């Protein structure tokens, strides 16, 4: 009892209670959000049931709705952005944290962090007027080299899953870079010195010692980036082509869940149409659960030697 009183007086219990409440608030808010989505999507859930998930039709006039093309587009564009973005982002973070002189490093980081502040609608507009014409020039070369795979086959109209992936890559870079850099910088210096003293090259000390030490933080930054790219709305909708079809080629136009919600929510009249769009929001949420879960299992099986 006396120990308890002392701890309260020291503030430990209070601090614990307050921080616990805040952590719990996150769960409560998320639960409330899911509940609201669930409640508002009722008309669509009742009418289509589970088949909503694998139906390819999206016909607002006839009142038939299916989520499959949007799920496909969301997964493909985000996966593409991660494949491009992770090496680029982690590479840049390594450069900024380990190699660049501190002054240059903080200057560049500052610039890169600003990239996160560019409103996505501006990135979208720039995407339409600058990235798309550029991709039209580059595309024949990519197709020439890789056109034999179905992934890069077919005609190219500028707007495509590919373009959306590139835009997403640019948008997630600041998240990966700035957080990974901070984490790398917080790795104690003796780790580096130890490796260098043992005769490792700069790269070896970085890749084999510092990066594994910071792995958890880097993975965290990748999760943030993934979540961001799954839910990114305005910029994607301007370059993805907004065509609810499923094509094997990255050069074909597609659609994403967030984009269709942004495009059609304001005009969706009637409870069923609106319910279908809100159910898509729910599907995106579920998709995030699955992808995060899968990534976590992957990480858990590979970070055995990670620290902290």
């Amino acid at each position, binding site marked *: 009892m006396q120990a308890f009183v002392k701890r309260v007086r020291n503030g430990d219990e209070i601090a614990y209670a307050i921080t616990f409440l805040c952590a719990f608030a996150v769960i409560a808010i998320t639960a409330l959000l899911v509940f609201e989505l669930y409640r508002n999507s009722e008309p669509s859930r009742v009418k289509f049931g589970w088949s909503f998930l694998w139906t390819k039709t999206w016909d607002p006039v*006839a009142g038939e709705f299916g989520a499959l093309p949007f799920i496909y587009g969301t997964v493909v564009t985000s996966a593409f952005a991660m494949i491009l973005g992770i090496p680029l982002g982690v590479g840049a973070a390594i450069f900024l944290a380990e190699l660049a002189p501190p002054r240059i490093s903080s200057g560049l980081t500052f610039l890169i962090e600003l990239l996160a502040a560019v409103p996505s609608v501006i990135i979208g507009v720039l995407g*339409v007027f600058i990235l798309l014409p550029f991709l039209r020039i580059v595309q024949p070369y990519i197709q020439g080299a890789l056109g034999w795979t179905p992934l890069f086959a077919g005609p190219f109209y500028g707007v495509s899953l590919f373009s959306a992936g590139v835009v997403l890559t640019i948008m997630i870079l600041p998240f990966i870079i700035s957080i990974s850099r901070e984490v790398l910088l917080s790795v104690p210096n003796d780790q580096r010195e130890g490796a260098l003293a043992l005769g490792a090259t700069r790269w070896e000390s970085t890749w084999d010692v510092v990066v594994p030490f910071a792995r958890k933080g880097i993975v965290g930054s990748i999760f943030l980036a993934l979540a961001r790219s799954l839910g990114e709305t305005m910029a994607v*909708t301007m370059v993805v082509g907004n065509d609810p079809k499923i094509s094997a080629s990255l050069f074909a136009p597609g659609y994403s869940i967030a984009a269709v919600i942004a495009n059609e929510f304001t005009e969706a*009249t009637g409870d069923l149409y609106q319910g279908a769009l809100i159910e898509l929001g729910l599907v995106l949420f579920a998709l995030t659960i699955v992808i995060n879960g899968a990534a976590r299992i992957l990480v858990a099986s590979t970070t055995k030697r990670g620290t902290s």
Partner: protein
Amino acid sequence: MTRNTIGAIIGIALLAGAASAQTLINGAGATFPYPMYSKWFDSYHKKFPTIQFNYNSIGSGGGIQQVTAGTVDFGASDGPMNDTQIKDFKDKRGAEILHFPTVLGADVPVYNIPGVSSQLNFTPEALAGIFLGQIKKWNDPAITGPNPGVKLPANDIVVVHRSEGSGTTYCWTDYLSKISKEWETKVGRGTSVQWPVGLGGKGNEGVSGQIKQQPNSMGYVELIYAVQSKMTYGKVKNAAGNFVNATLESVTEAAGSVKDMPDDFRVSITNAPGKGAYPVATFTWLLIPTKIADPVKKKAITDFLHWMLTEGQTMTAALDYAPLPKPVIAKETKAIAKIN
């Protein structure tokens, strides 16, 4: 730092809290008449400084939804509310909703064919065929027929349409439904539809950007948008058999062709019969409940409607909108009395 933060909070709160004796009336809806409405509401505010009309262009469907939910004082839409929506409004708000036409708009076919700079003629059959995906090449006889002397390439047509729901799409699909049975049964009319072919561009800007960049493409945009952004657009063959250019006059003539305007003003003027009437035209409406609880707001709204139908109509041409025909104005003026 904490002290600075608190100072900043107090400062902003004071600034923000400087309440005024203004009457703020909120409205939401259609995007296409937004420039006109913003001009009207601004002029009206200058004339009557205590009245502020705040209009937000969130889209026609949004306007219908928000006025039904009661979160705004009035709505605006490019397509009339349908019977289900009107019943829904009555159930939720216990009042009627009134449609007041304000200005006219039109959709025009825009295209980008390398080597072709002249104004093309489009027949209804050609437009329906292209958007159904049955006419695939620019040198299809259905397109070359009415365009003698224009050398059209043997390239595939890339169709571009609006990706988000919009009044522009409603007008375009309403027209296609009237001139093509196949379109009506296969696709139908709506603010967003299941397109048989084509790419989706976000907003007018997205569609026009696509068309400017993509050779051999075609799509549709609002007339005012096409004029303002200096795009070439085609003529469309109307019900009387003439190829008509979209202008303020030809759009007004389409509106004038309505012989008996229904009392609720819910009327479609696509494929209108007049000789020089442009066939892909539409009214745009303000949606106002018959019951407005706040007497100050009620007076402001009815006063504004009277002003819009008189002085307001003289301001339309400067912004490339077609004004309402005289008989419609007379009929509307009477309808204002229904607000009580």
